[in-house]
């Protein structure tokens, strides 16, 4: 089995405060892997190491090795690292000054890979369909994104991420601010994406139920360390670690 992400003894500190304390983790390719843990356990930081958004934080120091699709990202050009994956954030954040259409194709447009209008239209349609938003917006692609509901905006962000045709999709609690109906739609979309496109999905989630519904593998984090990891059923049915048990009971 090949791995999308491999981390070895990953340590991250910000202004001498250690956030991640020696992470060893492997995410198999083509799976949905959920990263769970209470607030402050370092989930979001871990996710941001994978596309090196962590570089933006002031005072950060990183050590250890991280490989994405077998390439050590510490030695690579940061822009290439970021192009290997794409990300959906906790807050829906479509660019407010661009139309729905432009938001979807911005990555492709800037990368300059796609030139013709037709190809661009096809890409937008494909991404919006995959994000299960096409039917809702096909008549108003020129509208500004803030005309959409929060859930629709988040699916637009998913479409924007997909339009880059990534092999790895990073999601940072994508449904934390979304209503239940939209949450289920996004989950369905993610399942399809994995199934139909074979994209590896690495997502942070706060909700054990979501991990159970969605993820093949689940990793449990606590206080900057991985305390437990494995197939989701195993962890859900038979948690070994005390923190996992309490987390599943909703106590932390």
């Amino acid at each position, binding site marked *: 089995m090949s791995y999308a992400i491999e981390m070895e003894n990953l340590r991250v500190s910000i202004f001498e405060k250690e956030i991640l304390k020696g992470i060893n983790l492997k995410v198999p390719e083509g799976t949905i892997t959920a990263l769970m843990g209470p607030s402050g356990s370092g989930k979001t930081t871990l996710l941001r190491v994978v596309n090196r958004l962590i570089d933006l934080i002031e005072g950060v120091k990183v050590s250890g090795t991280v490989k994405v699709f077998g390439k050590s990202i510490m030695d690579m050009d940061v*822009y290439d690292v*970021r192009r290997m994956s794409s990300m959906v*954030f906790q807050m829906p*954040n479509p*660019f407010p*000054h661009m139309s729905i259409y432009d938001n979807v194709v911005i*990555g492709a447009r*800037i990368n300059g890979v796609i030139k013709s209008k037709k190809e661009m239209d096809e890409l937008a349609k494909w991404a919006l369909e995959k994000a299960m938003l096409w039917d809702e917006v096909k008549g108003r692609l020129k509208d500004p994104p803030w005309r959409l509901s929060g859930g629709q905006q988040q699916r637009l962000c998913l479409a924007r*991420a997909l339009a*880059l045709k990534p092999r790895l999709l990073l999601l940072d609690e994508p449904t934390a601010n979304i209503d239940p109906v939209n949450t289920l739609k996004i989950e369905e979309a993610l399942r399809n994406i994995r199934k139909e496109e074979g994209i590896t999905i690495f997502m942070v989630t706060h909700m054990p139920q979501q991990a159970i519904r969605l993820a093949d593998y689940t990793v449990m984090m606590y206080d900057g360390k991985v305390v437990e990891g494995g197939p989701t059923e195993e962890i859900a049915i038979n948690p070994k670690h005390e923190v996992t048990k309490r987390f599943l009971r909703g106590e932390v």
Partner: protein
Amino acid sequence: MSYARVSSHDKIVFYSLVPPTLFVVLILMTLFLTQLYHSIPIFDVQGLLNTYTVNRWYPTQSPPELWKEPHYGLLPTIWGTIYVSGIAVLLALPLSISLAVFIEELLPRRFRGYMSSLVDLMAGTPTILFGLWGLSFLGPLLKEFFMEPAHEGLGFLPIFSCTPLSGTSILTAGVMLAVMIIPFMVAVIQESYKAIPVTYKEAAWSLGLTRFEYVRLNLSMIVPAIVSAVLLGLGRASSETAAVALVVGNIYALSFCMFSPTHTLTSIIAANFGEVEMYPYMRNALFAGGLFLLTFGMIINAMGIVLLRRIRF
């Protein structure tokens, strides 16, 4: 707590704020009305349209009954104001954007404070110092290293067509004003740039943009702020007086050539107001210039402020 108490408290706050607000509004109104009141006699004598569209400035002590044509036309000074501040804004805009982005993106965080202080210091420098600098340093420099080569090489262009004879010129005033308005434009652009929520910046980076593409995307997000910086800069440039009067040449003439002298609305007021009692109606003509400047400035600034408010993340 009861709603009644809250609202009565609010009322006290509200009513205590009414007088100062009214006061400020009244001051503004009197400012405008003063200009208008003192302008009216010249409109009566030579016509409102003539006052703003005639290219002739001929101070006279003779009574208006004897005037054969308008004596106080403001056209060249209006043109001078627009020309000079236009040059200023065109030069200042790219520099301001670059400086704002440089401070926000490239400068290590610990130096940003110093750089911002330096920019603020520039904004706080008495304008007359810029004027002296423009007169004694910038003017001769521009004449030697820009005006003369430009006239020789590109003299066929109308804007470079006249022989540069002195460091005081439309161009010098424009360049000096550009330097003077950069701090204000940088402040507006930098504030908006800084205010772009981090979640958009993360989204941009996560797309794998290069720094240049990333900056371009951010700038496109704050286009209204950039336009409003242009308008505020234009407002400032057109209202600057003391420094401009030192370098603009102060000649009443309508010229398209950058190396010519001109008068701006502010410089002609500053130049003539001292001994205005010697010439009947000149005073009113200068007030008419003030009226134009005030109206122009208010529109420009209001547009700038409205645009700035339109930015919503």
